[in-house]
């Protein structure tokens, strides 16, 4: 019986690989997360990272994430990642029993995503004076103000923690995080 199961599973697996759904809703993943496909393979969906987070940042993905249900993600607007600034280590990475969230050499090398300014909505671009995001940004040099005092994101430095998104005074936010998991595609508001 087990043999039949294995044979059927191999067949079904190959079929799923060929014809299965490939597009997934992009989610902003915790620091140290592997690329999306590896994360889905390695994450055991135990929620240890979610419980370890001191800020209640991480949430459990629901069934809208397809087979990614039970994996951790965060909504920066609701609660960003503070990169465990008060602690010695990143708590979620420390809690993970697999390598789904793997060690990072230091906080500046975290790459959760990249902040993207919506120039049509941002008050600084429209004309009023605002530098909330640049002031809140914990990484020096990630958001700099240009000569016209408008925020410019340095994509090489930005870690994607989402604090800028969290503090943005416009509604909805005019600076959002493009998750690292979707590469260079157009950013999309993750709810």
């Amino acid at each position, binding site marked *: 019986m087990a043999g039949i199961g294995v044979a059927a599973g191999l067949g079904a697996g190959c079929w799923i690989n060929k014809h299965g759904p490939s597009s997934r809703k992009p989610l902003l993943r915790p620091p140290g997360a592997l690329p999306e496909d590896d994360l889905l*393979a390695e994450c055991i969906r135990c929620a240890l990272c979610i419980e370890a987070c001191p800020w209640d940042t991480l949430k459990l993905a629901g069934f809208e994430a397809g087979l990614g249900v039970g994996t951790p993600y965060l909504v920066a607007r609701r609660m960003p990642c503070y990169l465990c600034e008060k602690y010695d280590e990143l708590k979620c990475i420390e809690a993970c029993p697999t390598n789904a969230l793997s060690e990072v050499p230091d906080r500046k090398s975290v790459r959760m995503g990249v902040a993207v300014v919506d120039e049509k909505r941002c008050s600084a671009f429209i004309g009023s004076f605002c530098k909330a995001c640049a002031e809140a940004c914990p990484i020096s040099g990630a958001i700099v103000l240009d000569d016209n005092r408008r925020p410019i994101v340095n994509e090489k430095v930005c870690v994607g923690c989402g604090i800028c998104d969290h503090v943005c005074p416009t509604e909805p936010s005019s600076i959002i995080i493009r998750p690292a998991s979707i590469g260079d595609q157009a950013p999309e508001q993750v709810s």
Partner: protein
Amino acid sequence: MRRRRNRIAKWTWLRRTTACVFLALIVLGCFQWFPWFKGSTTATRLFSLIPLADPLAAIEITFASRQLHPRLLIGAGLLLGFCLLMGPVFCGWVCPLGLLLDLNHALRERVRRLFGERRRPPVSGRIPSSIRFGVLGLVLAISLTTRMPAFQSLSPINIIGWSALEITQAARRIDAVSIASVASSYWTVLGPAALLLLAIVLTEFVSPRIWCRGFCPLGACYALVGRFAPLRVRIDPGEAGKTRCEHCERHCPMGIRVMEDYEFAGKDSIDHPDCTRCGACVDSCPRGVLKLGFTPFSSRDQCDEEIRADSSL
């Protein structure tokens, strides 16, 4: 003969307690002030030190990621070692789905008794338990080929764990806590999961624990390892088979034919792969012919002598 309903169903209550404790620990783990137990049904950490991992999940992750994770393997090893000694006790004593199905079954018994029916019907709808070994093979093969721990995303056991987590988290987060807001937040996250769970509970009306007996790959995993564990239901060889009350068979949630296949066959213990050491048969036996233990029956088993004296009144 005295009705045995007067006696407390010791094992049944004991294992319901352990299952409730496990669920309560998952809920408590959501709180920062409770560091001693963290995690959900797939992997947990005790006292912020000892890792425990669902063996099936650990194997699936190993297959899917094609890597060895020491913490996961230690965790799974600990549980499998425990299973080697105690049998598949997870299914009967810890599994939150088992608890749910048990309570559903108990409720149905109550209702049935309200309508005046006395005897339990024998467990119907036998399905070959080898099907779940097929499911186990299927799940592992899918994990290996699609690089996705297939069962972990759909496992009804995980769904209960996540639900406990999600409800606690939502209740903690939402400022003005109202049941409606918690329920709506839960529904958006795990609504379909709750439906899946309901579907499994409904299959109970076909036959009790049909999911566990026929389909659960985790149960199959534990059954493979724990079948010949020393902790077993033991049969008193002197007393067995003298009456045919069939209480044990009617009460066994896994539908094992305790009398036909074991008592009458002259065996002194039950080594059926489906046996989860839940003790339902032991609780149900009016003559104390059965016990749950590591050693075979000795004629000087005091407590059972008492029961026998009791039942002869």
